[in-house]
């Protein structure tokens, strides 16, 4: 399988982020190319999640810029980011607890729903106003995702009642529903067993292959990272200590001592 890795789609330049005295990120730069699987690894508290939060517009870095497809931002606003086609999942489950699985994933489609409040209020089975049609079309899309993630049986369960692992899948489903160009995944496989990790990996690769979705992946399972990523960034204490192919990173002395410990 040869995939054609394209140009730089996301370029992070000299980002620094501080919380009071804590330096979460110091002068981080790296790029992500279209269509690749880019992993970010590093010990706990290295600043990986914070990095995603900066890209996402949740945190606003004190210094540095981020460019997306050549457009440069000092910092991004969440809504813009979403509109540009960047979706993400969260490390600490950020699902909408009171809603069912379907509704959670449907929220991912919201940017694409165009009918206004009145049309929605007067939505009807006769299709007048178009809101119903739109809803159905989007629902169909969501059902495909549900099928794929094999959570059909839980469609209508409030997500709060699902076991942790399934919640992670729903989180992913919600991000996918946005049909993103770039998908940021924050430890998607934490709390999964091997089989489930395999499923998840396969799935990430599928999305990457079929839709050309660029993936940015944070993961602590080195097996996964080494197997599926094209390039890896390594952070430690907010600094970048390595960047390159899995092979290169795996053999980087600094990375080994800071993160990997014994070789894997």
């Amino acid at each position: 399988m040869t995939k054609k890795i394209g140009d730089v789609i996301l370029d992070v330049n000299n980002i620094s982020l501080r919380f009071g005295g804590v330096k979460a990120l110091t002068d981080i730069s790296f790029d992500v190319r279209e269509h690749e699987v880019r992993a970010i690894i590093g010990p706990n508290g290295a600043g990986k999640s914070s990095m995603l939060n900066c890209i996402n517009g949740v945190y606003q870095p004190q210094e540095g810029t981020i460019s997306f497809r050549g457009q440069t931002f000092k910092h991004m606003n969440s809504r813009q980011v979403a509109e540009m086609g960047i979706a993400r999942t969260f490390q600490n489950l950020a699902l909408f607890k009171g809603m069912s699985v379907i509704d959670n994933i449907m929220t991912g489609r919201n940017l694409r729903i165009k009918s206004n409040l009145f049309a929605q209020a007067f939505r009807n089975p006769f299709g007048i106003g178009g809101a119903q049609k739109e809803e159905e079309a989007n629902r169909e899309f969501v059902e495909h995702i549900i099928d794929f993630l094999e959570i059909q049986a839980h469609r209508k369960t409030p997500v709060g009642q699902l076991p942790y692992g399934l919640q992670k899948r729903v989180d992913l489903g919600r991000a996918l529903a946005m049909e993103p160009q770039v998908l940021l995944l924050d430890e998607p496989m934490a709390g999964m067993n091997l089989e489930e990790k395999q499923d998840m990996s396969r799935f990430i690769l599928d999305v990457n292959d079929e839709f050309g979705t660029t993936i940015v992946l944070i993961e602590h399972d080195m097996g996964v990272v080494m197997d599926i990523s094209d390039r890896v960034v390594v952070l430690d204490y907010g600094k970048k200590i390595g960047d390159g192919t899995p092979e290169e990173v795996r053999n980087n002395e600094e990375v080994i001592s800071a993160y990997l410990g014994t070789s894997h």
Partner: protein
Amino acid sequence: MSTPNIVLNVNGIEVIYNHVILVLKGVSLNVPQGKIAAVLGGNGAGKTTTLRAISNLLKAERGEVTKGSIELRGERIENLTPADLVNRGVVQVMEGRHCFAHLTIEENLLTGSYTRKDKGEIAANLEKVYNYFPRLKTRRTSQAAYTSGGEQQMCAIGRALMTNPSVMLLDEPSMGLAPQIVEEVFEIVKDLNTKEKVTFLLAEQNTNMALRYADYGYIMESGRIVMDGAAEDLRNNEDVKEFYLGMGGGERKSFKDVKSYKRRKRWLA
């Protein structure tokens, strides 16, 4: 089977959430004194529920044990409060960390010593925890909510250690931790187990690790124990190898090459 010194004995329990959702359908297991037992199984198998049933945190989730019994050193404990259990040395590290968001890391750890009265002992425990997790020491004054996922996980484990437990229930302790920390956590488990004779019951997804450190393993699926045996045996069991360790047929498969055509096809349909 002769029962040398069973600390925890779970006998055919059934658990129902919200009066209607039947989750555990007759789970039995026991943990001998000074041993490490692991409960393994996929998402939703009921591992967390089993641990909650033992530590009595089930009520807070509106679940209840409707059948069966749970004994700690021969004493029925279904009606004790979690606090009573902590006083008897049983402590659970909850899945999903549950740090006290507004308290600093150090305050979080200190709440763990609520049941301990001896000042010296508390200080020693704190030192011990900081030794295990130096990262926590550097972050001791930040509010727990503003620490990274892994730091919170360490905090949760450390907090439980502060109670000086004799039986620890660990729910996915490795989740979200960097590999060398995972290793360390299991080393800590081993360490406490051998040095301080702490008994462990751990629920883990990281089967590989768990079976490496545990003495005995139970494998759960949809609310039942489907297989159990000495860790050694389980590790060598072909099915376990295939499904849980990913080593069916010897070599470890690359995540890239796992076949999943069925799923793939459906996605494309």
